[in-house]
């Protein structure tokens, strides 16, 4: 069953069209929602939560209509907002327990669940300190914990890596992966950074100016392009030497970024030819791998606007 499905979903603000006849179906697992700032990601999430009404079209979340069954949806869904939303004078533990109760858990259960999810997101002793003193990474973890406390069936994570340094970003992405794959909770995660979603999501939905640009499995985005990337060393002009040798052997080869050589795969013997030629030239073969397309290539093809590749 589709976790989220929209049909002709449109949201018209007085001066801007945030969503334009969006038809999309999102299933279990981790789905990345990609788009530039202003592509309509946050608007879509608010409509899915039943917090903002759509101008036209319809959407269903976990089988409930967003227009009429908002409370039912919000009981089953966890939401991590993009912006700061944590009171400075309350501890993460107190807030998560309280919000667990607000999601309908009895007090004792809320305390137990809060302790569990805070441990899972990696907030240890600091959970008892007021959140005003938290680093951005800790705040993001607390925000994630409150989205998980009521054991939702779907979490909507709006830019969870926003403002994080590279290592905290890796931690957060690992957490998102854990939530989607180990906890078995469906995840819709937005980002304007493509490389992130490439790493964690099973599916990717690309939005551009409120329209659906593409929706498919991440693996399809990253399908092999039919060429090899080869890196050799041993002499300063090693790459040019090998490149010439490959062309002489009847293969199509061209210099790629840096000192790399891109070789078009003619048949299954091509890797052997590359290896043998390298050995013949007395060079060292550092690596030889299939070249994959990256999600950002899709954007170039699709002509989407200002999405930042990582």
């Amino acid at each position, binding site marked *: 069953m589709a976790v989220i499905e929209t049909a002709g979903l449109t949201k018209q603000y007085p001066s801007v069209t945030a969503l334009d006849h969006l038809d999309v179906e999102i299933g279990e697992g981790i789905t990345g929602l990609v788009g530039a700032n202003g592509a309509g990601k946050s608007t879509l999430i608010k409509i899915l939560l039943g917090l903002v009404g759509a101008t036209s079209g319809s959407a269903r979340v976990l089988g409930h209509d967003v227009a009429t069954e908002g409370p039912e949806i919000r009981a089953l869904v966890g939401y991590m907002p993009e912006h700061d939303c944590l009171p400075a004078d309350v501890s993460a533990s107190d807030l998560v327990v309280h919000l667990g109760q*607000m999601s309908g858990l009895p007090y004792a259960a809320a305390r137990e669940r809060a302790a569990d999810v805070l441990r899972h997101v990696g907030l240890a002793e600091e959970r008892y300190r007021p959140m005003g003193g938290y680093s951005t990474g800790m705040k993001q973890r607390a925000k994630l914990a409150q989205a998980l406390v009521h054991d939702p069936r779907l979490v909507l994570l709006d830019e969870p890596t926003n403002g994080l340094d590279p290592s905290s970003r890796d931690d957060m992405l690992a957490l998102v992966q854990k939530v989607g794959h180990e906890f078995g909770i469906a995840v819709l995660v937005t980002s304007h950074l493509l490389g992130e979603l490439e790493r964690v999501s099973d599916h990717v939905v690309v939005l551009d100016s409120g329209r659906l640009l593409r929706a498919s499995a991440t693996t399809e985005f990253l399908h092999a392009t039919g060429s090899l990337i080869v890196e050799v060393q041993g002499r300063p002009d090693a790459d040019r030497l090998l490149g010439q040798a490959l062309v002489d052997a009847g293969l199509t080869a061209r210099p790629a970024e840096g000192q790399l050589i891109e070789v078009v795969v003619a048949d299954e013997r091509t890797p052997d030819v590359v290896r043998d030629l390298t050995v013949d030239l007395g060079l060292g073969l550092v690596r030889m791998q299939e070249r994959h397309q990256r999600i950002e290539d899709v954007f170039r093809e699709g002509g989407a606007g200002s999405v930042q590749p990582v």
Partner: protein
Amino acid sequence: MSSPSEPAEPARAPTGVIHDLGYRPYAGPRLGERAVAWSFFLTGLRNTFGLGRSGRSKVLPMGLFGVMLLPALILVGVLVQAKDLLGLDAQIVPYSTYPLTTQLLISVFVAAQAPVLISRDLRFRTITLYLARPMRRTVYVLVRLASLAAGTFVLIASPLLLMYAGGLLADLPVGRETTRFFGAVVGAALLAVLLAGLAALVSALTVRRGMAVAAVIVVLLVSYTVVASIQGISVATGNETVGEVAGIFSPYTLVNGVQHYLFDSPRATPAPPSSDAMGLLYVAAVVVMAGGSVVALIARYRRVSP
């Protein structure tokens, strides 16, 4: 953590093992809208007295609560100990006058605690986390208001309860005291609702906490001072009607007037409503003021973007 000087643990190997249970789904009961609203109400009520918050935030509300009870305690002490000596046959200060006498404490309490419940969620945008949960927006607003009103009611009514108990101890006529006390409790409830509504509205409009505190105090104290001045002048110059109409514009004089009209409580202002028409106008003013602040508050929250 054990210090290095402590003797080592006995050689017996530890038998306990910590298991990582992994993620455990929740299969227990989930409460409905009412239970959630009730729990939200109780949390808010506790928060108005600083309970469940930092130690520092308990100081002001608890201090005010103590100071609020102190005069009642002294009055009861005098009443019980010196009733015959002084020839007393009623409360020294009438129930209905007590909130007017202690209005500064009540105003400070409401002004300081309304931002705790109202402005905080808006300033930190914690409101988003509430709106993303099953509770409806209107229920959120009404419950927040109810918590504040209940906290204010506890503050106003507690000393009255103390005086009532003291009155019974001092063998004042039970029937008469009960009637008067009942009227005073209704008055305390009305006053709590009016003050909470006004303070909540001002706090919701001024998101910054300090501003909200100052604005609420100014609104309550200035309105009372102006009303009291007008009433004093109008009575001195023989224009009671002007004074009676003016009484509508401060929650304290308004509620006192309603108590005077409905329960025949002793007057605590120079110009309480003297006719039925004026009495009904007072009652209508209470309804309009309470309802108006609720409607305005809900309208204000409609514009809060999640």
